């Protein structure tokens, strides 16, 4: 079995190449991230250049809270980064966090974007908005409530109602209007869909561009990424324009990427340093430039493409309250058969 011998040799050689995790150390900080590590690597590189503290990262789409929980007191995790309020809630519920004692957080992050008990703080924001067909939609303003209006019958495209971005938007609706009204609204929205929910946010723009629907629902940064970073997808963005919708009597639904401090953080001081640094002007500017997000720190310039959407007026509802209604939103989506 020559094949086996060669396989074994490959295994041995390759295993030597697998790098081994760095353990707790004074000059390091270990980050567990729901945010794609490729996206935040430039930030971490800048942090290391500024402070000399090495950043070790693991990123995943789900389950990191379970991993930290299972790791227990021996967990190397210092800082947890999330991209959605859902994951914030899970981590706090799992009891794997501790309050962030930082004056910077208190001073920089608006109260609505941090935990009253100090367990998490927002770093950057994205808004869930409408990509409207340039040639077919005349309106310049739209409310989330209006999306259920029969005048849009067969004209809306959206991804799965259980996707975390929609889940947060629907949870905000429940928090604002209560479950009964939210159910009615979801039924109305479902009736207005041009097709079964599928694809991602980019497909929403594509379907609008192709004439399948007039309104697509997506996040602010996807549109800017298609417009500026992806020549293939540029026509999709060009056929649409972004309208920042608002809740009646409120503002635009905003989701957070947030930072949490692990309960057993072995490098707590470095973790706090990283959190403060992420809220500094340099990092906040990078968030705005690299990923087209809204910085949470006041006075930091946003990207010109994002600025072209018009001024963002975030809804005043505290994020913690939205998170509390996620489960209700998810069960309502099932109940009205939104994804069927």
């Amino acid at each position, binding site marked *: 079995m020559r*094949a086996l011998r060669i396989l074994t040799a490959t295994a041995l050689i390759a295993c030597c190449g697998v790098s081994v995790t760095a*353990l707790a150390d004074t000059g390091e900080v270990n980050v567990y991230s729901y945010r794609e590590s490729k996206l935040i690597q430039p930030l971490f590189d800048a942090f290391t250049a500024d402070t000399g503290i090495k950043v070790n990262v693991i990123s995943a*789409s789900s*389950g990191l809270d*379970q991993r930290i929980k299972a790791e227990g007191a021996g967990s190397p995790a210092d800082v947890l980064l999330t991209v959605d309020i859902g994951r914030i809630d899970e981590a706090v519920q799992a009891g794997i966090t501790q309050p962030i004692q930082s004056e910077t957080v208190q001073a920089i992050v608006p109260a609505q974007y941090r935990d009253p008990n100090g367990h998490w703080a927002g770093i950057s924001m994205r808004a869930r908005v409408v990509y409207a067909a340039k040639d077919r939609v005349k309106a310049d303003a739209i409310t989330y409530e209006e999306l259920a209006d029969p005048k849009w019958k067969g004209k809306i495209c959206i991804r799965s109602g259980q996707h975390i971005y929609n889940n947060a938007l629907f949870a905000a609706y429940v928090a604002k209007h209560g479950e009964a009204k939210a159910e009615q609204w979801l039924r109305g929205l479902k009736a207005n869909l041009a097709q079964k929910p599928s694809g991602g946010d980019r497909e929403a723009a*594509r379907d609008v561009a*192709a004439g399948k629907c007039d309104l697509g629902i997506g996040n602010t940064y996807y549109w800017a990424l298609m417009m500026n970073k992806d020549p293939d997808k540029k026509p999709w963005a060009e056929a649409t324009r972004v309208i920042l919708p608002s809740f009646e009597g409120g503002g635009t639904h905003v989701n957070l990427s947030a930072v949490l401090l692990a309960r057993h953080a072995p490098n707590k001081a470095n973790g706090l340093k990283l959190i403060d640094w992420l809220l500094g002007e340099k990092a906040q500017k990078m968030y705005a430039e690299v990923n087209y997000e809204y910085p949470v720190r006041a006075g930091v310039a946003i990207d010109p493409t994002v600025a072209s959407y018009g001024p963002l007026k975030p809804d005043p509802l505290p994020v913690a309250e939205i998170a509390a209604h996620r489960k209700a939103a998810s069960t309502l989506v099932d109940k009205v058969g939104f994804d069927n």
Partner: protein
Amino acid sequence: MASTIDAAARDRRSVAGRRGRAARRFGLARRSAPLTLASSLAIVAALLVATPVASLLVLAAQPTAEVWSHLIAYVLSTALRDTALLLAGVGAVALLVGGGTAWLVSLYDFPGRRLLLWLLPMPLAIPTYVSAYVYVDLFEPLGLAHRLLTTWLPAQDAVRLLPGLRSLPGAIVLIGGVLYPYVYLSVRATLQHRSAELTEAARVLGAGPWQILRRIALPTVRPAFALGLALVCLETLNDIGASEYLGVRTLTVTIFTIWLNQGSLGGAAQMSCLMLMIVAGLVVLERYGRRRGSVALSAENPRIAARQRLRGLRGGLAAAACGVPPLLGFIVPLAFLAYQSAQRDLLAQAGAGLWRDALATLGFATLATLIALLLGLAAVLAHRWRPTRLQATAEAVAQAGYALPGLVLAIGLLIPVLALDNGLGAVSAMLGWSAPGLVIVSFGAAVVAAYVIRFLAVPTGLIKVGAGRIPRDYDDCAVVAGARPFAMLNRIHLPLLRPAMIGAVIIVFVDCLKELPATLLLRPLNVETLATSIYQYASRGSFEDGALAALLIVLASIGPVAWLTRDAASPSGPA
């Protein structure tokens, strides 16, 4: 799927029957090192697989009454229906395509056959979510197909001609189109060494080609079909990326919703147990369905049937029939990835990081493949040499891991692995050693363990099918001739099991390269594999930026697949 071919093995035993038992009484019943080793390894394999299942059961023990009333009222019927339709559809596509192509290349010679031999398993290298992204990109409005159509038609008319890929039928075709190699490889391993005598006897007795197919050929490949089909179904059940993207709400998608949006890990664990039960039910049903269909092989005629040459139109048609599946399942996605990598100049941008990721991927995959192969072989041989109830159970349990969706497996594995890790830490602290940290996780052993558990069913299943085709007479003769088990293993079983082992190595290795959810959650800090690196891009919607990593997965798969299929082309072994 556990022990899908038990029945066949049992029937054969009754044919080899008394002789075999007698031989075992005098020969293998003796204690011997290989036998003990195989038995212990088989039990280790079973325990390994049982660990995450047990931990899942513990999670499932939480009370979750409200979750279930909700599920029963609104979710379960749709999810079960969609899952059933998806499985039936993908299974049918895979059987037809995989079985048909394996049939053609094994029985006939036609132009391009040698090339097709190594192209046919290649779609295995394309992860289902990659295929979904690629084809949606090409065939949705404004994609390549649409642009081509608009040269003749107005844009809106052209839109109507496009297939709606984001749908259940779309998912069936796209997923089936890359999963058929499981059936192909399994059936091919069987057909490669098919005996001429049965067919010839049937022909002499006046049977027509259809009768031969129905009464001789199909029963012979039935275990291989069943195994391939089981792998396809389980792989489909495990899929989440493609299903969600294409808008199909399967049980797996539901499990994630319950866990992540409705905050009930217990409910998700219970749902996973339900899924395991469905899988077990299917296995029982399948075994019941062919309780009387069995093939007893004789050792007397090791003559391999010659391939029939197809010329002219028939040869062309056969080549086309075998060419289209790899074209759609492999070449088109490959070309798409290569084009995107070139257009975006990804190679120039890729630093040392990408090569480190590739090396890590290879390391995990090779190690896991070797361990899985060893454990699978042990489980099958232990049961063959000493068919006790314990070994039968071990063999069956060893195949259960495939039924666990990757992330569910990872969650199930987290608790025991980290408990062990923390235990080691406590012990070393007691001994006064400096704290080693979480060694199992930090050296990547958890990832390898997850791969082995998840893919152990492949070598176990394939080797079992292969071993089923080795006549018992061989074992008996060897024992009577005084061969020790090790010699028997080395000179009879290993050589004859080669096609099965080769198939297993290809599938497990390539599956490991592609594995995403368990790798994401269990890998050490600062370690990326190619699959996780694609995910980094895909999850923010710019999947094309991960094209180079996807291309590397494909390239890493081409090597072993091409090389091993070439090896397998030379026939060896018995009827």
